[in-house]
């Protein structure tokens, strides 16, 4: 039984770390849109130039806000998962390497 719990804790730890990688992917997407859409000079300085502000404020900012909410939700789920994994981990009284190493910054 203890072995099974430890396997579960190890996989929960792996997914906990994995979610951080996923969250970083969201950051990459946000930066990509900002760099390639919000900061573009494609609309020139003439009659089309207001499009730049419209697109930055009407598309890029809400897109960034949506990603931010997604990351916040993922961090919350991640935090909960850490608690679950750690509880499992502690059942046999041994703290595995992962939960030990993440204990100090799991809420970041």
């Amino acid at each position, binding site marked *: 039984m203890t072995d*099974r*719990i430890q*396997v*579960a804790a*190890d*996989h*929960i*730890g*792996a*997914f906990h*770390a*994995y*979610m951080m*990688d*996923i969250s970083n*992917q*969201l950051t*990459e*997407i946000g930066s*990509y*849109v900002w760099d*390639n*859409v919000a900061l*573009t*000079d*494609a*609309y*020139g*300085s*003439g*009659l*089309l130039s*207001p*499009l730049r502000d*419209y*697109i930055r404020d*009407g*598309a*890029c900012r*809400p*897109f960034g*806000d*949506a990603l931010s*909410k*997604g990351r*916040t*939700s*993922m*961090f*919350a*789920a991640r*935090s*909960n*998962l850490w*608690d*679950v994994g750690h*509880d*499992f981990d502690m059942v046999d009284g041994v703290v*595995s390497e*992962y939960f030990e190493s993440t204990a100090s910054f799991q809420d970041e």
Partner: protein
Amino acid sequence: MVTYTIPTEMSSVLTTPEEGDIELEIDKNDDKFDTLNDAIETCTGFYSDAQSVAGKVGISFPGPQIQQTSAVELFVEPFSGDWNGIIACGDAVKKAGLGLQTVAENLLLGMGQLFASSGGEWEGETALSFNAHMGIHVATYQGAGMVVSQGKLIFDGISEVAQFIAGLVVELIDTALDLAVWLLEKIAVYGRPWIGWAKFVADVIQDGWAAIQGIIDAMTSLYDTITAVFDLHDAVKEWVETIPAELAVFEQLVGVFEQIPDLASTPLLTAAAIRNDLNDVGQSSQDVIDARRQAEQDAEDAQNRLDELADGIEKPGVSDDMEGIEVPEGAEG
């Protein structure tokens, strides 16, 4: 230690946006704009002199007064833009949408490892609850990815209209240039000091305004062309102001992400005694799907509206006046 590796890295999805290959460059340093400036200035001077000369014999010159303006300020600067860059923006948005869908796939594959590859060692209500909760994340990123990818259509619409405008401008420049070349040649006859205006008076006395009807017609056509460009300025300004409404679909994305239950204030998974209401989770999933479908529909509506705008802009851009413009015989080339 068990580790999960991300199956698809963002670097393979978020590649450099592809630009279009539209060739509608208008070079403001092109000599043709000097010719146009000369023609505008010459016509303005001719109108003033002709009005003065005609006034001395008690009549008024029937040609139009062409507004003194810079050809570059009229034709080039208002329409400055990089159509291929706008196409690249659309491609970037599409790739961002694919990125979100990739996030959904990566999450799903990670969950597969957690619940299947682990041998199903984590089970029970907490596991079910977490699986259901992460299922909402997956659905949200899938849906948002589709919405954002469809947002590309809005940029395609903007690019399409911008290219259309550029095409119109090129046509207007060509028409104006034909008229300018012709006018500069004809008006030059009357532009010579003393002799020119003496000939002008003699011609008009002998044949009436019919003697210079060609010049009057060409000046009228140039005037109409310039007026059409000013009309196009107004049409473009009006069209640009409609764009914010077309971007509402991006605002709705925030709402889609708000559908994810907030675990920060509700620690659903902190203990084995968790009592997750799966019905609520199911309802939230349905809300996400509904919101996504609504957003998709709105994106489609936005594209349709832009299509209509692209069709409609021809009317203010190419006015009825423009249709009447005829380059006098011999003006081409």
